């Protein structure tokens, strides 16, 4: 028995750059004449898919020689930076466009969700749009009718089902659209970032539904997302694309680690020059779980300060605050001379603070640093908004749902029966 759901053999995709104009017409005609007379295909000048290279060529390989197999029942994530070829691969797999070279073999009924609510007509009612969108996605009318109640209930739009969707709130619109897609009955499902819709509650509901589809129903799912959190929640294997080529195929955790080790070019340390001040913070750097300043929730987090002083500072103190993306302070940690001799001589000093388990909610964070004397009475230096880093909740087995608005930080704790 054939256990392969999708087999991709040597798939490449070439794109033409620039705009269509009389110049392209001229080139097209030239090429056609060449092909006609010489019977050989003129090889176009094609460059690799790497935006950092400046190249004169007119064509670019968005994907180059992609080979992989997906077994039935696998839940596969496709990750990669913007422009790595994720969307192109999805488009080829879902037959939106054909590859320039190579073949894709598919075993089973396939459906793709590159968008929710494709073909929704604003003037039609919710009910009419369920039938329209369902049939666009390839469902039969009888199939839609049998699932109608489920869809309406999942979307939670019972009251509005006979109202044109143009009167829907955007949340209702998206919920209805997702509900239809979630009830598609296929063997293979291709999903592109559709989860990035709706409020937190609905997103959780969607993730739950995705889990149900992939784990309980045993469907083959291909999932493309920038959201590493949902990738790690949903998938067991990943394909890492880089510049149109496959960089890695394998376990999700390994793929994610590889993905982050690829983005080394971001500078997230703070540096300053010493100009004979009494005190100067020369360098602040953070050490995160992954490279490229990505921190795992509950992972070790370290921050290092290098400070130069021209004389001992009286009762010195240092502190740093971690702010979230809306500039709300979440964590404040300090060190004073009373706890440990601190800046009590002139010279260059390096201090490191380690947080054994940084339990921050996923998101972007940055740091403010304060150095003071006289037990904090007199601020010597303030550095704001440095060392940005991102917290991911990778592979966390959550027994409860940690919502963004329920709390920002989890403290370590022990429960005891007394």
């Amino acid at each position, binding site marked *: 028995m054939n256990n392969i759901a999708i087999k991709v053999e040597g798939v490449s995709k070439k794109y033409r750059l620039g705009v269509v104009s009389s110049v392209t*017409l001229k080139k097209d005609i030239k090429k056609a004449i060449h092909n006609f007379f010489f019977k050989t295909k003129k090889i176009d000048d094609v460059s690799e898919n790497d935006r950092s290279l400046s190249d004169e060529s007119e064509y670019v390989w968005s994907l180059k020689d992609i080979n992989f197999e997906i077994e039935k029942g696998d839940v596969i994530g496709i990750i990669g930076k913007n422009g790595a070829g994720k969307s192109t691969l999805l*488009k080829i797999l*879902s037959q939106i466009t054909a590859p320039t070279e190579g073949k894709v073999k598919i075993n089973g009924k396939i459906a793709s969700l590159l968008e929710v609510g494709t073909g929704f007509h604003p003037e039609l009612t919710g009910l*009419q749009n369920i039938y329209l969108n369902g049939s666009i996605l390839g469902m039969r009318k009888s199939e839609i009718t049998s699932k109608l109640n489920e869809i309406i209930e999942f979307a939670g739009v019972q009251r509005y089902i006979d109202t044109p969707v143009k009167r829907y709130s955007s949340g209702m619109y998206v919920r209805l659209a997702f509900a239809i897609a979630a009830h598609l009955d296929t063997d293979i499902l291709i999903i592109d970032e559709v989860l990035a819709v709706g409020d937190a509650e609905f997103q959780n509901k969607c993730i739950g539904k995705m889990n149900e589809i992939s784990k309980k129903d045993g469907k083959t799912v291909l999932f493309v997302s920038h959201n590493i959190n949902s990738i790690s929640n949903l998938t067991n294997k990943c394909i890492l694309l880089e510049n149109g080529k496959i960089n890695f195929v394998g376990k999700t955790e390994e793929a994610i680690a590889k993905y982050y080790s690829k983005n080394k070019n971001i500078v997230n340390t703070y540096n300053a020059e010493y100009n004979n001040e009494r005190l100067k913070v020369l360098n602040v750097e953070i050490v995160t779980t992954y490279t490229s300043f990505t921190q795992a929730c509950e992972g070790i987090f370290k921050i290092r300060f290098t400070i130069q002083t021209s004389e001992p500072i009286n009762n010195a103190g240092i502190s740093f605050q971690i702010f979230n993306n809306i500039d709300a302070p979440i964590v404040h940690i300090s060190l004073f001379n009373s706890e440990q001799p601190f800046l009590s001589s002139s010279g260059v000093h390096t201090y490191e603070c380690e947080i054994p388990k940084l339990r921050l909610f996923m998101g972007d964070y940055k740091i403010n640093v304060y150095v003071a004397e006289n037990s904090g009475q007199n601020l010597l230096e303030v550095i704001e908004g440095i060392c940005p880093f991102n917290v991911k909740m990778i592979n966390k087995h959550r027994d409860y749902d940690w919502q963004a608005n329920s709390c920002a930080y989890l403290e370590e704790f022990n429960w005891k029966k007394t």
Partner: protein
Amino acid sequence: MGSNKNNWSKVISAKRSWWDIDLKGVLNYKDLISSLIRRDLVSIYKQTILGPVWFLFGPLFTVFTYTFAFSTIAKIPTDGIPAPVFYLAGTILWNYFQACFNQASGTFINNAHLFGKVYFPRIIPSIAMIISNLLKMLLQFIVFIVFCIYYQNQEMISMNIYILSFPLLVLLMAILSLGFGLIISSLSVKYRDLNQLIGVFITLLMYASPIIYPSSSVPSVLKPYLSLNPIAPIINSFRYAFTGAGAFDWWGILYTTIFSLFMLFFGLILFHKVEKTFIDTI
């Protein structure tokens, strides 16, 4: 893996032969065709009070304008039959052609948002469009029949057995417009210039067809050129069948049949060649 070569339910590959048109796939999507037809018909008169009556209003208004401008003022002959029925006979099928042609030639551009997100046989919106326009046309046809019966009772026109050819004439119009439309839509994917020409082309074609004038009033010098127009035999034969004016143009119908089948064939091949990768250029 070589042994279970035939186990794959679908193979997506770079090259596809030109005759490999997926007709079975179209049948699998017949529910989509009916959904799209319903969308076309329902959405157009949403939030109007008269609803489908508006389908009738446009052509009636056109006919009264023509009657006033071309018959009453310009005194263009109407082959001895009442002007309103003469113009209606001309415009009903012509409007059908025009609507189908316009929509078919915009298939790729107007459906790019759909085609870019979901796969289904790309010909489906065109098939749905042909049918929904047919339904709109039949509504107008009913009005035309009312006119015909009125004038028939006045013994000013003579409907004859040729009215049985109506389905054939409609089918020819559908094939012709789809053929033309598919060619334009395929060619305009890359070079949009063609779209700019459509309006001019449609106007020219209308005046080259016996819609506001009878074929009998065309000077004999021009007649050979006019007979190249595949629309003319359809309009002439339709008008003869329902009013008795002019003649049923057997040779012309034969010419139109061959011409339109050729156009459809050519259009389908072009469309098929373009549909796989048009989304990269559109």
